């Protein structure tokens, strides 16, 4: 039975307009600071000033000429790459075990796996630093990667679990019915369909590691600092556009990464399953 008259065309048009306008506002909100950063990176004055007085590449020159920044950028990329691989391996396998392994108390274990998100990362960093001191290993690179991996694993677990739990298990059952053994089912049905969730987690892991600050604070050693630490320290002494230049470079890297992912995996795929 038809219960109510359908909405008049104008209201529909208005509604759609509001919807799009709202989204446009959100995008502006997300991107406004980025635009500011670009403006900063190009404004020659060495402090916050509006309106900008001109266009200059001096901060980019300073950024690229600075050995500290270049080393930091390179180190951040290295650490982020290693962390992504480690977090993905650990996290995806854990998620698989939690979703399909029939472990007792899997809810508690999941909560535990997610707990590095909850604790202030500065405590995690300090605790790890203390542990390294105990083990007498100093502040090695693997220690830093380990710290990053710990705080990145929750993301991979989350996204992979989300995929696995909303999985249409009838697909696996169909494979079984067609005669595939459990192992083959996992490799040829479950894993390929889980891939988008894992990739989403990997993207998060990369971003979290690249942008990680409090854990790195205690675990970096002199001369081998990650970019956020170098930037934060730089902010203490110099509030100039070099920070803007650094971020513009990061953004361009980000765009590359996103494009790359879209071409290879297809970002679309982990939206609809």
């Amino acid at each position, binding site marked *: 039975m038809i219960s109510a008259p359908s909405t008049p065309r104008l209201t529909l048009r208005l509604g759609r307009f509001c919807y799009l306008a709202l989204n446009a506002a959100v995008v502006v909100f997300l991107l406004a600071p980025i635009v500011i950063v670009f403006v900063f990176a190009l404004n020659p004055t060495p402090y916050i000033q509006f309106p900008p007085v001109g266009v200059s590449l001096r901060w980019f020159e300073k950024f690229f000429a600075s050995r500290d920044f270049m080393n930091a950028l390179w180190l951040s990329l290295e650490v982020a790459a290693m962390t992504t691989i480690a977090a993905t391996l650990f996290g995806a396998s854990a998620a698989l075990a939690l979703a399909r392994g029939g472990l007792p108390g899997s809810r508690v274990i999941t909560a535990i796996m997610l707990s590095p998100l909850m604790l202030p990362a500065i405590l995690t960093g300090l605790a790890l630093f203390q542990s390294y001191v105990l083990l007498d290993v100093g502040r090695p690179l693997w220690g830093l990667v380990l710290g990053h991996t710990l705080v990145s694993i929750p993301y991979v677990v989350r996204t992979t679990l989300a995929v696995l739990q909303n999985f249409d298990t009838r697909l696996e*059952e169909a494979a079984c019915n067609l005669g595939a053994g459990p192992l083959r089912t996992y490799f040829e049905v479950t894993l390929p369909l889980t891939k988008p969730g894992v990739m989403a987690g990997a993207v998060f892991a990369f971003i979290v590691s690249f942008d990680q600050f409090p854990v790195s604070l205690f675990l970096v050693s002199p001369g081998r600092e990650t970019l956020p630490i170098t930037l934060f320290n730089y902010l203490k002494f110099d509030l100039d556009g070099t920070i803007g230049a650094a971020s513009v470079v990061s953004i361009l890297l*980000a765009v590359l990464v996103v494009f790359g992912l879209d071409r290879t995996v297809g970002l679309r795929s982990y939206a609809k399953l």
Partner: protein
Amino acid sequence: MNAARAGITPIAWLIAPSALLFALFFFLPMGLMAMISLLTGNPVVQPNVEFTTKYYRRILDDIYYFEVIWTTLRIGLLTTLAALLIGYPLAHLMARVRGRTAYAMLMMAVLTPMLTGIVVRTFAWMALLSDKGAINQGLIGLGLISKPLPLMYNEFSIVLGLTHIYVPYMVLTLVGVIGRIDERLEHAAQNLGASPLRAFLEVTLPLSLPGILAGSLLVFALAISAYVTPILMGGFQIMTLPMLIYQQISSSFNVGFAAALGMVLLTISLVLVIAYNRILGLVSGQRDLQ
């Protein structure tokens, strides 16, 4: 029925590497911190330490610390609400949009802020909100105000900065969930006479509830642990728990007290995770979407 449902399968062993990693490098260090919160000193470097509850007593005795905890929670709640209100429309659009390019562009808009870096983004907000920043100078230039608005160094700027950083997390969590809601359900509702708004409110929104809760929990957990943004945006006049912890470590050198505060924060968070799990179980009646 899926054979895995019957009991522990060999796949369960895959948990081993993570379990080992967590045991060695998360629980042991955390256990160390928990211990430190109950000792007079750091057992790793000091010879004579004794058991004490003075740090916890200090928290309980002074109402100031409850205020700090409440401020932290309040900022977390406001940020989560803001992130939800801002992030949901965008997630909805991204889940429903047709073109691949449009989707990629929206994804770019979402991911780019995340990759800019927390320090730089906060700095950008400083450039926007401070007295000499873009907004105030723009408004003064247009003659709309004569004195700069106090947009920075208060709770507003902290929530704004945190929301900006965490909206992408909310969006990315929601996109997946909304995307999985079959559009035909909405169409069916509209065919039965509901307006698009009603279809949304009575079909889509309830079905996306697990995603809303998942995203909210994530943003809340991150917001109450945040410290770079509150420091840079709040000018230290707003004190959150992570800031206090950092202050205790870096300038009061009081690791024991910092550890105690950290344990308080961890406990709050764990309580929230458990509560969330319960609520989700009640609300959706399906497996939890952690």
